[in-house]
């Protein structure tokens, strides 16, 4: 691995350093498939970078980490370039000082890979309307994470208001294995669902999303109940004519699926690290219509005063 520090620099100097380093490594061809812009603060930088480089094993990318530092300092751009790490691709950490913190897009634009998709990820706090944010505007896909908001449930409930196709939330990504299992359970006819409940640790933003999705697809009222956690712990759906289809997980790893007239079945359902969530997000870069439907339903449910 080569680390290269540039202080008080510019985007064009960073760009030519990247080209030079690539040639030195004997790999001048660019096999990278996208640019991932990560907007994060200094405290979240390490974890975000780690997850992004892990995800880059599946999707070789140029990773631009944008860190805003003290706006009161004189204007300055510092860059730390890392190439030839265990993952393919390139990493540039950008530290912005002074008035430049307001103009990060001017630094990022010249560093985007030509004619390949741009994905923006806010691992921490995200702007109110991500698609209107100067950096968000550069991306065809914008990844947020309601879990890191001060009030996760409120954050996820308000996503519909700011939704622009291309938005997505890791609180939704965390649900994929749950949704996949539930969908598999419905591959065999279950019967009409009259209602249900999603159980999760209090304040878990994925729970209302799952409830909204189920409510939207099954056309039945789905409640949310608090449990001891960790994370999501269960889904119970009442079948017309009695009986319950349940998927429950108490240890964050192994779940039990049970349904009327069938033996209980245990199935692996582990919580996934951020890198896997991110890799899933990068697999498809088109707007996620199902997510849009779920957040709209969630907003409607909140509007009617149901929790």
């Amino acid at each position, binding site marked *: 691995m080569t680390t290269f520090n540039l202080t008080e620099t510019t985007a064009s100097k960073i760009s030519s350093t990247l080209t030079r380093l690539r040639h030195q490594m004997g790999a001048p*061809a660019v*096999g*990278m*498939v996208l640019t991932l812009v990560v907007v994060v603060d200094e405290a979240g930088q390490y974890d975000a970078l780690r997850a992004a480089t892990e995800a880059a*094993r*599946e*999707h*070789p990318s140029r990773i631009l980490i944008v860190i805003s530092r003290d706006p009161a300092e004189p204007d300055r751009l510092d860059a730390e370039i890392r190439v030839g790490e265990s993952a*393919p691709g390139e990493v540039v950490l950008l530290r912005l000082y002074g008035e430049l913190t307001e103009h990060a897009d001017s630094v990022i634009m010249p560093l985007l890979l030509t004619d390949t998709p741009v994905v923006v990820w806010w691992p921490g706090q995200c702007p109110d309307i991500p698609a209107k944010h100067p950096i968000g505007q550069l991306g065809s896909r914008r990844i947020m994470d309601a879990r890191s908001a001060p009030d996760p449930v409120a954050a996820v409930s308000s996503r519909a208001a700011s939704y622009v196709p291309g938005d997505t939330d890791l609180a939704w*990504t965390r649900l*994929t*294995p749950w*949704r*996949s*299992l*539930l*969908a*598999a*359970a*419905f*591959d*065999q*006819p279950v019967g009409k669902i009259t209602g249900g409940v999603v159980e999760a640790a209090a304040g878990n933003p994925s729970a209302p999303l799952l409830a909204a999705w*189920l409510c939207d*697809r*099954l*056309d039945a009222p789905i409640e949310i109940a608090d449990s001891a956690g960790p994370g999501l712990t269960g889904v119970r759906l009442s079948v017309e004519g009695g009986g319950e289809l349940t998927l429950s997980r108490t240890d964050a*790893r*192994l779940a039990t*699926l049970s349904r*009327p*007239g*069938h*033996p*209980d*079945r*245990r*199935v*692996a*359902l*582990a919580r996934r690290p951020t890198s896997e969530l991110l890799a*899933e997000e990068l697999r*498809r870069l088109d707007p*996620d*219509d*199902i997510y849009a439907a779920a957040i709209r339903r969630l907003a409607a449910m909140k509007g009617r005063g149901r929790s």
Partner: protein
Amino acid sequence: MTERKEPQAPAGGATARTGDDLTSAERAVLAAARAATTGTAEPGMAANPLRDPRDRRLPRVAGPCVLVLFGVTGDLAKRKLLPAIYDLGNRGLLPPGFSLVGFARRDWAHEDFAQVTYEAVKEHARTPFREEVWKQLSEGIHFCPGEFSDDGAFDVLAMMLKEIDETRGTGGNYAFYLSVPPKFFPLVIQQLKRTNLAKAPAGSWRRVVIEKPFGHDLKSARELNEITSAVFPESSVFRIDHYLGKETVQNILALRFANTLYEPIWNRGYVDHVQITMAEDIGIGGRAGYYDGIGAARDVIQNHLLQLLALVAMEDPTSFDADALRREKEKVLRAVKLPADLATGTARGQYLRGWQGGEPVVGYLEEQGISPDSTTETYAAVKLEVANRRWAGVPFYLRTGKRLSRRMTEVAVVFQRAPHLPFSKDDTEILGHNALVIRVQPDEGITVRFGSKVPGTAMEVRDVNMDFAYGESFMESSPEAYERLLLDVLIGDPPLFPHQREVELSWQILDPIEEFWASQGRPEGYVSGSWGPASADAMLARDGRAWRRL
């Protein structure tokens, strides 16, 4: 044997439940009753409210089913099949309740087979080992000891499967994987018929998976097919050619039919010839019993290379469903023409003692279990033509061999030279043909070779490569071919499996060549670690061409 008929809780499963056993037993009875009366609908038949074609995060997951593996002690099972099953589980693609039944002539209990599977997974699985995935898988692992001729053993198997349906909710859906030598096929298939396991009750499915070789000539292929088709309908027979499960091979279709760049030049107007190569650096290893008398052409050309040829040469299918795809492949195979003179249009060889990759190795005739006067070829090359409007006059050169200098499989489409070069002859002296090379393994990817100016004041043009590597632009390790194919079997998705008609057409191409070779005595020797026999080089030299260097 009788002790096996007693109801058995899935290994490890019962201990974790707390006082729930009575209810789950009751549920099992209820499930059995329900299955007997209504049956379970086929996956995807009734509209599933939770599925939506736009919801592309949700993976294709197989419905509840049992995979019965015959020949679990074999090399393929340990190295590929069992690890592939685990990898599928790890990717969340196996249904809850998925069960695996091993059948072999071993005095094993369920736990012993689970242990064998555990070791195979630990050693060969592609994805990291995760305890919870293993737990899910191991609860569904069963073993049925017995010989293929033993009626009792198959009765036990039938009963075991019925029991699994009740305890695991697998709904009578069974896939039988015959990872056994073809001589046992008739026995196993007959047993499945006798025990009524081959016939699916309404609402469930039964599938049989067979591995190559699909016979050793047209006649035996037909005989083999009669055996399976007498018991299983063609739609339930899945013939595995693991090459078709490889990402790069499927990418041939994407490359050709998703792009506009290549299709206009993909014809006799621009293509000079096509070379399809599968080179191996290893010898026959422990496969003497199978390999001797079969040879390279039957082992590789009949299936892998002709399938690659079909994918490269076929017209665009109307869709990617099994019927449309197979129809186009069949048309190409039907259009394949043999060279007029088989003596100059084919080549074969047998490896001799030599050095391969820095190690001394013995010749084919000195291998253990090979008769010293064997005429089996370990290298085969043929020149074929596809007689249709697109390809007439473009030779397709196919070659395969063992103990060559290195391991490599590729398809090279070599283009014609530019009709006129506005450079002096000296400038372009070392300029070769443009070529598009699909590297199937190892280092999967695509290379485009074209001429480029050498920096300097002179206008000198030389060949350069432009490269796309799968490992670089996509997944670090793409799914193993067997993962994809096993999943397709469990889902019941047949496009990647050759139809019996394709198998027969391929034998029709190969049979005359084999007959000719049989009359020609010994194959020509070639030194281990080389690039094959001289006659193969001469075959291309006569056409004014040369093999790509391995």
